[in-house]
């Protein structure tokens, strides 16, 4: 039996269904992300786990305990909020000590555990600083230390990095992952940022309209998206109309061998970074070429519509704007889904 289990979790607001029968089993020590656009039900799910929102149906189990009707104060979960929600009238150390005081931890042990928590998040010198006097990244770390110091069974992170600038966000991703590995706390992250989910998680749950579209490891989910929604949400993808006749895929003027595939009309999904330039394949004209440092982003107009291509900046020639070229990719880089399903 898994450590944290959501069973058919449902939350309705009047007619609207925010979370629709979500089931999920999380192993002890696992880092799972709930990923989806706003309004997909990921935050409501987190709030139900935290106990701030009561489920309309379904249950939550943590180890041997049924959490469904337990008050939030008694659940013993650590939560990092999007706004950090630090207590503004308390210093960093007082913020972190609050949970320990609520648990009646003796004063000397409190002091030691607060110091350890501050050291864990790399803020050893800032224990007497008030939140207003700290940067966003530092506040974030205090919030993390405050959630971890109570040794929670589960750590819940509600878009914790969304208020940080891009560079800091990347640093914090690496650090968050390292801290989570060190303490080994089972962690649920809610995010709308697919790169954050992929960087941090053992498994990702892509949510859409209150249900899970796919639950998988990041690499698996990126390479074998189960639905068109997942494919589109995780990174950029080109979806092209294709026909298969006698084991040959035809897209525009391009042909690919597809042994074993049934005949018919399909949608071919190809990641932009898997597309190269060649002498034959799908013919097109480069409409736009944008330099992005470590790669080029190209828009190529073809017979079957605009195709996005990401080409590494590895010294090889990149076709100029207006140039005609052919797009090629390997058969295994292409996922074929029957045309009706692709919408």
């Amino acid at each position, binding site marked *: 039996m898994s450590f944290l289990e959501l069973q058919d979790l449902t939350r309705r607001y009047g007619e609207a269904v925010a979370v629709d029968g979500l089931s999920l089993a999380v192993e002890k020590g696992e880092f799972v992300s709930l990923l989806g656009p706003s309004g997909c039900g990921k935050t409501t799910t987190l709030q139900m786990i935290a106990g701030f929102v009561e489920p309309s149906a379904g249950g939550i189990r943590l180890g041997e305990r049924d959490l469904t009707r337990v008050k939030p104060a008694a659940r013993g979960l650590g939560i990092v909020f999007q706004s950090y*929600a630090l207590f503004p009238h308390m210093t960093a150390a007082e913020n972190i000590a609050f949970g320990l005081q609520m648990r009646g931890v003796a004063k000397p042990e409190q002091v030691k555990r607060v110091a350890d928590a501050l050291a864990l998040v790399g803020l050893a010198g800032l224990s007497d600083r008030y939140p207003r*006097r700290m940067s966003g990244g530092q506040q974030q770390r205090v919030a993390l230390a405050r959630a971890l110091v109570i040794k929670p069974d589960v750590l819940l992170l509600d878009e914790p990095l969304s208020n940080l600038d891009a560079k800091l966000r990347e640093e914090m991703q690496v650090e968050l992952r390292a801290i989570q590995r060190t303490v080994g706390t089972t962690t649920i992250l809610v995010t709308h940022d697919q790169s954050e989910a992929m960087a941090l998680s053992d498994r990702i749950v892509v949510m859409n309209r209150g249900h899970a579209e796919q639950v998988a490891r990041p690499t698996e989910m990126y390479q074998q998206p189960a639905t068109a929604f997942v494919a589109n949400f995780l990174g950029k993808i080109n979806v092209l109309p294709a026909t298969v006749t006698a084991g040959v895929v035809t897209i525009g003027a391009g042909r690919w061998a597809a042994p074993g595939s049934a005949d018919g009309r399909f949608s071919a999904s190809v990641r932009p970074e898997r597309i190269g330039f060649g002498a034959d394949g799908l013919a097109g004209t480069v409409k736009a070429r944008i330099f992005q440092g470590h790669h080029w982003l190209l828009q190529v107009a073809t017979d079957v519509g605009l195709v996005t291509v990401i080409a590494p900046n590895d010294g090889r020639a990149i076709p100029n704007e207006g140039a005609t070229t052919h797009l090629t990719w390997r058969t295994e880089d292409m996922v074929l889904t029957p045309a009706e399903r692709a919408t």
Partner: protein
Amino acid sequence: MSTAETAYRGRAPWLLAAPALLLFAGIVLVPIVMTVLLSFHDWGQYKGIETIITLKNWHEIATDSYFFEIFLRTFRIALLTTVISVLIGAPEAYILSRMAPPWRGVFLVIVLGPLLISVVARTLGWALLFGSTGLINVALVRLGIVATPVQFMFTETGVVIGLVHVLVPFVVISVWASLQRLDPQIENAAVSLGGSGFTVLRRIVLPQVMPGILSGAIVVFALAASAFATPAIIGGRRLKVASTLAYDEFLNTLNWPLGAAVAVLLLIALAAIIVGSNRFVERRYAEVFR
């Protein structure tokens, strides 16, 4: 940039502010200065006001215990009104902020109601309720809570009740404003860390709205100490406070200079208390809330 332009730029803020400054000087500063000057003039029953400079009025106020008693009463009433208003107003604001939208609006209007009623009508209403045959006393006697009617009229109790009624809204508004600025997730964070409802209220919510409570308290204190209509109607002649004393000196005794001295002393005392407590609040919370 030319020198003329630089000079113009330097003067521009003053020119723009000039109309408001002139108005302020005309209707606030000049009368205050004249009142201060008046307090140093002499007065006699038969000679009227003599425009000489004398410390007679100030000496009288400083030495006669009658004035000391009245000022003591004024600030005792103001302090009591402030404490009670805070004790009622702060929880009231918190409960209001927790109400669901349709009721919240209705109750907010009810809470702010006293401010919408003319001060004289409202205070006379209290006088009707307070009398020995008034609604409150009749109810108290009939219910057997007291044997004889309680004396509300012409007592400090009555004045404090009347003042609290009209001044509570100022605490509510002030606390309401600071409650609106609270991040609701902060309360959730405290709860998730194991805080019970009361602990969260005491250790998380209360300290954050403390600046609001204190600024509300300062407003209430200032208004209670300088209130006129309520102590005049409920306190009457027998229970004078600083403002009714000044009024009587001006309009009954016609001793304008003495009345002016009382008014100036009230102004100075209030200003000192307000500026002092404001300083305290700002220094106490500067680190946390700026």
